[in-house]
């Protein structure tokens, strides 16, 4: 942002009451300015979002009967996406670990990308929950003090607390750093370092609590396993880095930013380990289910092989397995660092594979067969697909804008200057 170059020195009278709205206004201006690709991208996303908004309005008016959920399969596409996105939000910030615990300086620049991903993913997750509510107008019943908050007995209340807390945490970190940059002031470590460390721990808690939502239900044997929370965490550490790797390359191309290959290398190394651990946990689950047998394992049978001729999920889960295994093989190949196509294909495959496995492949089998062993299948209706597309479009819009605002920062960083071989305004300022 150009205003930073014309800011007076920090000793003149400053009022945050005046500067913060200016900062927000600059952000708004920033978000409606860009090249042609940007305008086309944002217009397309806006159109998709409007389609989704309309579909949601129809759902609220006509009731959830417009979805294909039923009393047998009472959670569907929305909660599947919610679960996956909580993992993505957690995974994005987990990359902060090598940056701060291992003093990887190049990774520092990546933490902001990860936190912005967490913000966008969390907003999407919360929107999916709201779209899944039968009575969104009664949202205020959830607010402690105003409504009745069944904390700490209900795991959903824990989820509300940790998700919103995590959102506030990341908004604070990113907002503070960007605002300080806008003011041309050095960020005070006291105001963001502890929060960054807190967000590492908190990231683990959001996905653990979301897993506890499921694995605490004794009536659903498919979910009632201790391995569910660790599985959620490892798949988050696969999907988060996968998204970031692809996002970095998009940023390079579309916004002309320069990122070193160091962060990408670190992320690929993280993924190599976590994708294998994830596969190991899947194998562990599959063994326990199929070796034990019995009625409690009908859901796993339904997922992998179908039961009594009902097999809608079978092609999905096997594609997910194939995608994840292929991604693992590609990532373990030493040539993945020199062949970008290999890395990108692996990331896309891993992302989609985890989306299937932790989304529809985890939520739906919990309901099929039902608790009274009736088999009623589920495929999302058109309205559900529309709402999902609308929320993803909004999330991508938020992420695009957030990255766009933050990207200017990197262009002025000495790392980028080193890459470009010239001086930057920052170096001029510092001298």
């Amino acid at each position, binding site marked *: 942002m150009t205003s930073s170059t014309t800011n007076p020195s920090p000793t003149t009278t400053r009022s945050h009451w005046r500067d913060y709205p200016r900062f927000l206004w600059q952000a708004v201006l920033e978000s409606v300015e860009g090249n042609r690709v940007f305008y086309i991208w944002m217009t397309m996303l806006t159109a998709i979002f409007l389609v989704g908004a309309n579909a949601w309005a129809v759902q609220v008016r006509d009731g959830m*009967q417009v979805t*294909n*959920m*039923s*009393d*047998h*399969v009472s959670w569907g596409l929305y909660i599947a996406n919610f679960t996956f996105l909580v993992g993505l939000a957690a995974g994005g910030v987990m990359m902060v670990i090598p940056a701060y615990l291992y003093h990887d*300086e190049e990774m*520092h*620049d990546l933490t*902001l990308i990860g936190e912005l991903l967490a913000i966008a993913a969390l907003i999407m997750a919360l929107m999916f929950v709201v779209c899944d509510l039968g009575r969104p107008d009664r949202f205020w019943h959830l607010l402690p003090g105003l409504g009745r908050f069944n*904390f*700490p*007995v209900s795991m959903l209340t824990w989820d509300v607390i940790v998700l919103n807390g995590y959102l506030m945490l990341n908004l604070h970190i990113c907002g503070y*750093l*960007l605002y*300080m*940059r806008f003011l041309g002031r*050095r*960020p005070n*470590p*006291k105001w963001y*370092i*502890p929060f960054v*460390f*807190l967000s590492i*721990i908190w990231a683990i808690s959001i996905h653990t609590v979301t897993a506890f939502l499921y694995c605490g239900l004794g009536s659903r044997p498919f979910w009632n396993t201790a391995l569910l929370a660790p599985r959620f965490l490892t798949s988050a550490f696969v999907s988060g880095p996968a998204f970031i790797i692809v996002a970095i390359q998009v940023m390079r191309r579309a916004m002309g930013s320069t990122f070193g290959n160091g962060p990408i290398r670190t992320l690929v190394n993280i993924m190599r380990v976590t994708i294998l651990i994830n596969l190991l946990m899947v194998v562990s689950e599959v063994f326990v289910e199929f070796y034990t047998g019995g009625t409690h394992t009908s859901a796993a049978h339904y997922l992998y092989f179908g039961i*009594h*001729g009902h097999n809608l999920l079978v092609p999905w889960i096997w594609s997910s397995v194939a995608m994840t295994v292929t991604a693992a093989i590609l990532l373990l190949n030493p040539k993945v660092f020199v062949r970008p196509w290999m890395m990108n294909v692996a990331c896309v495959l891993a992302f989609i594979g985890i989306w299937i496995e932790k989304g529809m492949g985890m939520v739906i089998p919990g309901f099929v067969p039902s608790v009274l*062993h*009736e*088999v*009623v299948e*589920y495929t999302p209706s058109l309205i559900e697909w529309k709402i999902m597309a609308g929320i993803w479009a909004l999330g991508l819009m938020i992420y695009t804008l957030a990255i766009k605002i933050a990207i200017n*920062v990197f262009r002025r*960083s*000495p790392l980028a200057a080193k890459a470009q071989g010239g001086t930057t305004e*920052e170096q001029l300022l*510092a001298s």
Partner: protein
Amino acid sequence: MFTPELRPQPDDVAARKPGGRWSWMQAVIIILGLLAVAGLAVGVLQAADAAKGTAKSESPVLPAKTNLFPVVIKRPPGPPQVKTSLTNFQGQPVLVSCSSCHTTTKPNLENRSAADLDQFHQGLKYQHGNLTCLSCHNSGNYDTLRLADTQTVEFADNMTLCSQCHGPQRRDYERGLHGGMNGHWDLTRGGRTRNTCINCHDPHTPKFPQVLPVLPPRDRISIPAAHAATTGSTAH
């Protein structure tokens, strides 16, 4: 923003009091951990309380069992009457009592099935084990019934007759576990009507007949009804 000079330098850390930055973070983590433990403890206690809560309400403060409302048993008024093909001057069918015919005929102790009835009582279905007609019907007085020890019982007391062989059912009936009821579970607030055996069981073919079930579920999303009908099951 993340330029080297903006990151905390080692001498910054050293310049502050030793362990200053770390204790900030440690304090936050410790406080959060304590809060989480406290929350869990409260949750466990609350759940235990909820379980105890229902137990607390189990202190037997029962209403006094005086002035109970009556339990009415739908006894038949008397012996059944048979319709003849004649009608009276009001157009109603003429009914005759059992003794109208049976005082003039000789009882046949050999009759064991409905096929043996060649004159009257045509179309009577009879399937009640190995009993003969006169196991229950009183050959001395067809307006009454008889027990196995030749004692006479009135038609209104048919339950006594059934109970001599179906003791377990009678025992359950007395406990309220057989035969259903209409009315109140709490007899201090209202009465109750109960059936006799023959309200549900035809004494000549006591086995419950097959019926067609009502109100099949029409779930919005379900297996197709046709599939269920042909296989007779949703599960194979």
